[in-house]
């Protein structure tokens, strides 16, 4: 069944305001984002994030079937790095007016990425030592959990091992903000148990 949200959950006063709480009503040829409520926009953003991560994941799967896992991860890295430089970094920093050249600027960008931190998907603990030094402990990573379930160690290496896509991308985010920012993994998968954390990364602005 398409569409499952119960409109009765939405407060009456909110429903009476002009903004659409969802798109369950009639088709409006001139619909624009501005016509939706804040809550609806947040859900739409969530839908975009799910599609974005899911489409990239499905491309990885069909590529791996065609060319093998290791080659598929090489294509992934190529695509992600192009995406970062051509789209993600310029678009997100411009749209959200993120400026600066310290480690906290990198973390702000992380929070804004379409495949970035999101409750339930990718979650982390922040240990902010200073503006120029932070350690992130990832406690939830659905991509890692997916590959753990499917049991291919090469996929976990390609995703988060040394020289992996995460390693390349995390480093590149830091360098884009400031070439003196370094990134290193303090702990990486594979995990000993499902209760274990996923990984730990340190960003530091060097002299």
């Amino acid at each position, binding site marked *: 069944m398409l569409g499952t949200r119960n409109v009765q959950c939405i407060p009456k006063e909110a429903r009476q305001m002009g903004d659409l709480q969802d798109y369950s009503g009639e*088709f409006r040829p001139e619909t624009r984002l501005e016509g939706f409520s804040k809550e609806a926009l947040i859900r739409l953003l969530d839908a975009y994030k799910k*599609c974005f991560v899911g*489409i990239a994941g499905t491309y990885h799967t069909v590529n791996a079937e065609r060319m093998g896992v290791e080659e598929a991860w090489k294509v992934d890295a190529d695509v992600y790095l192009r995406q970062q430089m051509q789209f993600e970094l310029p678009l997100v920093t411009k749209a959200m007016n993120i400026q600066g050249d310290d480690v906290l600027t990198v973390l702000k960008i992380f929070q804004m990425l379409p495949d970035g931190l999101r409750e339930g998907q990718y979650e982390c603990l922040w240990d902010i030592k200073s503006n120029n030094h932070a350690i992130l402990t990832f406690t939830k990573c659905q991509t890692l959990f997916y590959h753990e379930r499917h049991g291919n160690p090469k996929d976990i290496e390609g995703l988060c091992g040394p020289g992996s896509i995460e390693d390349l991308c995390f480093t590149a985010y830091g360098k884009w903000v400031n070439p003196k920012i370094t990134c290193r993994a303090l702990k990486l998968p594979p995990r000993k148990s499902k209760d274990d954390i996923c990984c730990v990364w340190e960003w530091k602005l060097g002299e």
Partner: protein
Amino acid sequence: MAELNDYSGPFKPDLSPEDFSKAGLIQWLRAAARIYGGIDQLWHGPLIEELGQEKADELQMKMWFRKGGGCDLEVKSLTQEMDFGGDDVASHLKMYQLLPFMQLFMNIEYDVKDRNYALMTVKRCAALRHYEKTGEMGRLLQLCTGLEQVGFQEGARRFNPNMKVTALKLPPRQSEDDICCQWEFKIED
């Protein structure tokens, strides 16, 4: 706490989307939509370089139209989060209004005649404009008569198996004043 119109202020470890104003959220959504809207070409391009056009096209079609692939994912995520369903053509057209590529890179006119029939006219299409400039007509035809034509039909089928999508006009066009393409959505008995 005042709502944020952007993220120029200090780092907020517990930031959540609710912290932004509606204007701030729209800015964020548009950036996310531009990134997501360009994702297919970002994957398809390197695959063409690596494997050649034909095999890259094959993988692209698999990614979009296999069970649980891109098409299923978009229909499921958008209909669930924005709570719309229905098996008529107008319900299906709501999808296109919310899909980033169509929302940002195209100007579209919808003419819904009744629950079983509608016309969709694309008046501006950034992809068409790009390929017209570069002269890559092969890539253009692959996009419009391959991916899009199959994609519209596959998307429609997920709302109603009897919905048929027909291209009434496709590129190449005679002049820049011409429309880009036109599609008919019809539910057949």
